[in-house]
């Protein structure tokens, strides 16, 4: 395949996969939603879960975005240093977003700051947002597509604590944010927490925590235990689907960390809504793809 053909194929794959991510929830999220719905019996909670599953079914039948808020598109890229299109990825992903916006369609969601004009094609200054991880000695690329609506981005926050506030300060921060803003963010929520030495590192890790499969745990035993404690605690609060109260609040709680400064404990929080639209695709050097997040997906 010549370079131009490869480029076109890469754009087509990523446009199709971006659109796909807007229609279908990933396997782990769908399985968890079903598990949570089965535990509810109050009429308000079951009415909401019934609406959610009906919506997903209709979205699949009609090939439409399951939620109208298709987010400002973010791509988290793990690219092998020998991937043949490494120099083209940025341009290709912008083209893919434009293509998906027209084809599905996606909602026009990019407003230029200061000009306050909607760009009308979901591409704008530094958007789609790209996060890069370079993987030495590989020739393939893995890309997460993530579309977060405004509603589940609103609880997002970061705070730099003084160390003597300790991990207790982290726990209080998370609970205060979720009980204050969580009900508007379309629960059951996936809660991402970053702990690090400064606000931007903690924030970025909190978003990366949302990319982890539901049911996975922090590699540190204390981190894993804290995830479970916060998950059980938030469930006990019982936000229920849509905040109408119920037996649970969350799809999961994921923590990611980086070494901190001795004088700071920074905590970042990101939340994902029940319609957690996270897709993961692997594309090899011959531009064959495999969708890892949705088993059996054909684009």
């Amino acid at each position, binding site marked *: 395949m010549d370079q131009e053909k490869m480029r076109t194929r890469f754009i087509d794959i990523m446009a199709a996969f971006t659109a796909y991510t807007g229609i279908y929830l990933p396997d782990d999220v769908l399985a968890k939603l079903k598990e949570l719905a089965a535990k509810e019996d109050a009429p308000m909670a079951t009415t909401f879960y019934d*609406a959610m599953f009906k919506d997903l079914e209709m*979205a699949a039948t009609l090939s*439409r975005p399951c939620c*109208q808020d298709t987010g400002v598109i973010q791509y988290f890229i793990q690219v092998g240093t020998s991937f043949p299109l490494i120099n083209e990825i940025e341009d290709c992903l912008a083209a893919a977003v434009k293509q998906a916006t027209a084809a599905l369609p996606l*909602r026009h969601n990019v407003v230029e700051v200061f000009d306050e*004009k*909607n760009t009308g094609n979901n591409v704008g200054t530094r958007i789609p947002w790209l996060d890069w991880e370079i993987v030495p000695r590989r020739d393939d690329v893995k890309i997460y597509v993530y579309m977060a609506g405004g*509603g589940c981005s609103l609880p997002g926050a970061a705070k730099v604590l003084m160390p003597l506030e300790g991990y207790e300060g982290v726990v209080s921060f998370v609970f205060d944010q979720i009980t204050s803003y969580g009900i508007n963010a379309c629960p059951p929520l996936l809660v991402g927490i970053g702990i690090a030495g400064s606000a931007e590192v903690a924030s970025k890790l909190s978003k990366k925590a949302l990319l982890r499969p539901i049911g996975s745990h922090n590699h540190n035993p*204390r981190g894993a235990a804290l995830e479970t404690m916060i998950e059980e605690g938030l469930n006990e609060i019982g936000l229920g689907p*849509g905040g109408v109260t119920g037996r649970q609040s969350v799809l999961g709680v994921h923590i990611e960390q980086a070494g901190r400064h001795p004088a700071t404990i920074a905590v970042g929080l990101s939340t994902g809504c029940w319609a957690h639209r996270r897709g993961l695709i692997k594309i090899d050097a011959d531009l064959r793809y495999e969708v890892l997040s949705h088993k059996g997906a054909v684009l």
Partner: protein
Amino acid sequence: MKTKTLSTPIKDEDILELSIGDIVYLSGHLITSRDDVHQRLIKQKKPLPLDLAGKAIFHAGPIMRERPEEKGKYDVISIGPTTSMRMEKYEKEFIAATGVKLIVGKGGMGEKTAAGCMRYQAVHAVFPGGCAVLAADRVEEVEGVEWLDLGMPEAIWVLRVKDFGPLLISIDAKGNNLFEKNKKRFNEKKRQIVAEINQHVDYLE
């Protein structure tokens, strides 16, 4: 939890019969109005291009598709509710200025809106968040669009709907606010739960 149907124009007596926790289905006119529409009417004092008295507004930014063969005519692709709390700043004044009777959105609204609902006989209701294709299915026709210069999500979309719901009444005209009540309950539980967890996280050396 009672189930009722409402049709526009909505009368004050229909509103006064509703209580928080009721489920309602709407037929008639539902008009999208979110951040920029509230800002234009209340802060910038631009007159609205249509009459909302007795009607319902929807805090929503839809995905619409213009018919290729019929310019200016749109079909709704997906239209779920957006976070109502964003409109808290202006909603009371908005109700007073327009005479709107039913406000549909997602999540709760605050004290100011609840006071507005009580004073001007209006209610706030939530449609299940994210259920945008389900909502689109209940739209019979997109009758028109105004203020499209604001962009697709922020424009005023005039929809004719049938059996639009389920809509859960979250603020009634009698001073009750379902989500504020829930929030109090959540916060009471929180104190105890956080104290319990914090007995196990003394990781500092």
